[in-house]
C-alpha cells in the first residue's frame, strides 16, 4: 500500500513537471509578450527595464529554470496585471470565491443527486424513475451557461425575484454568506454534476439490489428497511465515490462560464483574463494548481475505495 502510494506520488511529480514544460513552451511558442500593448508608448530603455525586471530578456530555458526554482520555494512570482500583489495572494483571493461556489454546488449536487438516484432506484421503472432519467439527461446535456441564461431571463428579468449576478453583494443571511445572489449560480452550476451523481447512484443501487447476498439477507428475515440502508446502500457507495472523485476537481477549479455569466470574481474568470493578457506567472500557477488538484483527488479516491470496500487492494497485489 505504502509502496503503491509512493509510486503514485512519484508519477504525480512527473505529470506536474510535464505540465509545467508544456504550458511554458506553449506560452512562449509565439513571438510577442505580455507588454506588447505598451509598444510605442514606452521609450525603448524603459521597455528594456521592464523586460529585465521580469527576466523576459533571458533565453526561454533559463526563464523556465528560474521560474521552477522559485516555484519549488512556493514563490510563484508577480502577476503582470496587478504588480502590487503576488501570484500566490491573487490565487488565494480568487480561488477562495471559486471554492465557495464549488462547495455550495457540491452540497446541492450530491444532496439532491443521491436522493433522486436512490428514489429512482427503489421505485425502479415507475414514473418517478422515468422522470429522474429524463431530467438527468437534460441536466448533463444542456450546457450550464445556457441554463444560467434561462434562469437569468426568468428569475431576474421577467420576474425580478433574484439578482442577476455578483457574489456576496446582495442580501445575505450571515455577513457575506448565504446571499440571494448565490442561488442562481449554484443551482445552474449544480445541475450537471447532480445529474451524473443521480445516474451513478441509481445504476449502482439497481446493480446491488440484484446481488445474491441481498436475497440471502431477505431470506434471513432482515427487515426491508435494514436491507436497503445497511446492505444495498453501503455496497452502492463505490460508484458514488467515483463520481465524487471526478466531480470535485471540476467544481473547485471553477466554472469559467458560471463565473463570467454571473460576474463572480473567481479563479475561472480570472484565468480567462490572465491568458488574454499573457500573464505568464498566473497561467503557470493556475495550471500547476489544477494538475496538482486532479492528481491528489484521484489518489484520494483510490484510497477511499479501500476504506469503503476492504476487498479492494491497491496496486493489484496482496499486502504483506
Amino acid at each position: 500500500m505504502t509502496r503503491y502510494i509512493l509510486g503514485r506520488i512519484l508519477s504525480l511529480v512527473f505529470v506536474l513537471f510535464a505540465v509545467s514544460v508544456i504550458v511554458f513552451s506553449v506560452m512562449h511558442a509565439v513571438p510577442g509578450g505580455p507588454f506588447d500593448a505598451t509598444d510605442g508608448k514606452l521609450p525603448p530603455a524603459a521597455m528594456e527595464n521592464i523586460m529585465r525586471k521580469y527576466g523576459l530578456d533571458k533565453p526561454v530555458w533559463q526563464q523556465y529554470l528560474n521560474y521552477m526554482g522559485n516555484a519549488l520555494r512556493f514563490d510563484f512570482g508577480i502577476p503582470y496585471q496587478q504588480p502590487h500583489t503576488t501570484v500566490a495572494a491573487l490565487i488565494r483571493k480568487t480561488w477562495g470565491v471559486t471554492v465557495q461556489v464549488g462547495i455550495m454546488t457540491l452540497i446541492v449536487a450530491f444532496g439532491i443527486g443521491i436522493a433522486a438516484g436512490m428514489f429512482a432506484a427503489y421505485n425502479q421503472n415507475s414514473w418517478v424513475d422515468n422522470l429522474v432519467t429524463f431530467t438527468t439527461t437534460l441536466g448533463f446535456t444542456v450546457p450550464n451557461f445556457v441554463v444560467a441564461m434561462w434562469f437569468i431571463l426568468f428569475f431576474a428579468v421577467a420576474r425580478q425575484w433574484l439578482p442577476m449576478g455578483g457574489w456576496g453583494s446582495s442580501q445575505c443571511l450571515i455577513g457575506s454568506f448565504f446571499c440571494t445572489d448565490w442561488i442562481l449560480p449554484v443551482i445552474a452550476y449544480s445541475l450537471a454534476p447532480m445529474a451524473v451523481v443521480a445516474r451513478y447512484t441509481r445504476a449502482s443501487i439497481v446493480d446491488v439490489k440484484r446481488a445474491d447476498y441481498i436475497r440471502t439477507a431477505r431470506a434471513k428475515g432482515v427487515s426491508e428497511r435494514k436491507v436497503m440502508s445497511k446492505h444495498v446502500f453501503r455496497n452502492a457507495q463505490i460508484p458514488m465515490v467515483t463520481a465524487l472523485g471526478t466531480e470535485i476537481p471540476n467544481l473547485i477549479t471553477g466554472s469559467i462560464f458560471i463565473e463570467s455569466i454571473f460576474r463572480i470574481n473567481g479563479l475561472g474568470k480570472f484565468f480567462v483574463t490572465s491568458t488574454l493578457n499573457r500573464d505568464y506567472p498566473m497561467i503557470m500557477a493556475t495550471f500547476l494548481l489544477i494538475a496538482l488538484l486532479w492528481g491528489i483527488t484521484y489518489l484520494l479516491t483510490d484510497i477511499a475505495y479501500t476504506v469503503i470496500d476492504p476487498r479492494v487492494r491497491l496496486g493489484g497485489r496482496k499486502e504483506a
Partner: protein
Amino acid sequence: MAFLKSKTKEPLAPASPIRQSRSFWQDARKRFFRNRLAVIGLIIVSIIVVLAVFADILAPYDYDRAYFDRVLQKPLQHPEHILGTDEVGRDYLSRLIFGARTSLIVALSVQGIAVLIGVPLGVLAGYLGGRFDFVFSRIIEVMTAFPSLLFAILIISVLGGGLKTIIVALSITSWIGISRLARAQILSLREQDYALAARALGVKEWHIMMRHLLPNALSPILVAVSFGIPSAIFAEAGLSFLGLGVNDPIASWGKMVGVSNAYVRVYWHLALFPTLAIALTMLGFTFLGDGLQDALDPKQEE
C-alpha cells in the same frame, strides 16, 4: 458513458421457428428505430444538418448583412425580421441558421481529427505494447491532467481567435479519449480466441489487426464519436461565449449568447433563441448517441 443508456423495454422480436439471418448492422438498425428518443434525436440532428448545409438558400438574409437603421428590433417588431435583429441590425433568424453551420464545422472537424489521430495511436499502443505503449500511456496521463477547455483557452490566447484556431485548440485534447478507448478495445480483443486462432493459422499480424481486431472495435469508437460531437459543439459555444471563439462577422450561437448578456435586461430575444438552439442541438446529438449505443451494443441489453 454506459450510464447514459436509455431503456428500451420491449424485448427483441420473438424467435420464430425459421429465423431469417440478419447481419449485425441490420439488427442494429432495427434496435435503433425501435427507440423513440433515438428517432427524435435523429430528426433534430437531420434538421440541424439541413440548416447548416443549405444555410445560403434557407436564410432570408446573409449572415453579415447589417441594417443600421433596424438595430435591436424585437421579434415581429419589424415585418421583415421574424426573430428580430441584433445589436448591429443583422437578421437574427439568418444568424441562427448560419450558426448551425459554424457549430457543425467545428464539431465534425474536431471529431474527424480525433479519430484520425486517436484511433491509429490507440490501436498501435494496444497491439504493440512494450515501449511504444509505455510512452503512449505517459502522454495520455499528462494530457488528462489538462482540463481540455483551459488548454484550449491557452492555445487560443497564443494563436489568436478564429475558426481554424478553435478547431486546432480543441483537437489537441479531443483525441485522447478515443485513443484510450481504442487501446482498451484492442487490448481485450487481441486476447480473444478468434485472434489466437488467426495467429495459429499463420495470418500476418497486420492482417489480424486490420481485418479481425479493428472491425470489432469499431462500434464503441462510433459511439464515442457520436458523444464527442455534442461535447465539441459545447466547447465551441463556450469559447465563443467567453469571446475567445470565432471572429466577427461569423455567426456562432455561443457568441450570440455572450453578446446578449449585456442586453438581457431589455432584449431578451437575443439570449433566448441561441440558447434554445444550443440546447436543442445538444439534446438531439445526445439522444442520437444514446440510441447508437443501445443499438450497437446488444450485449448491454438485458
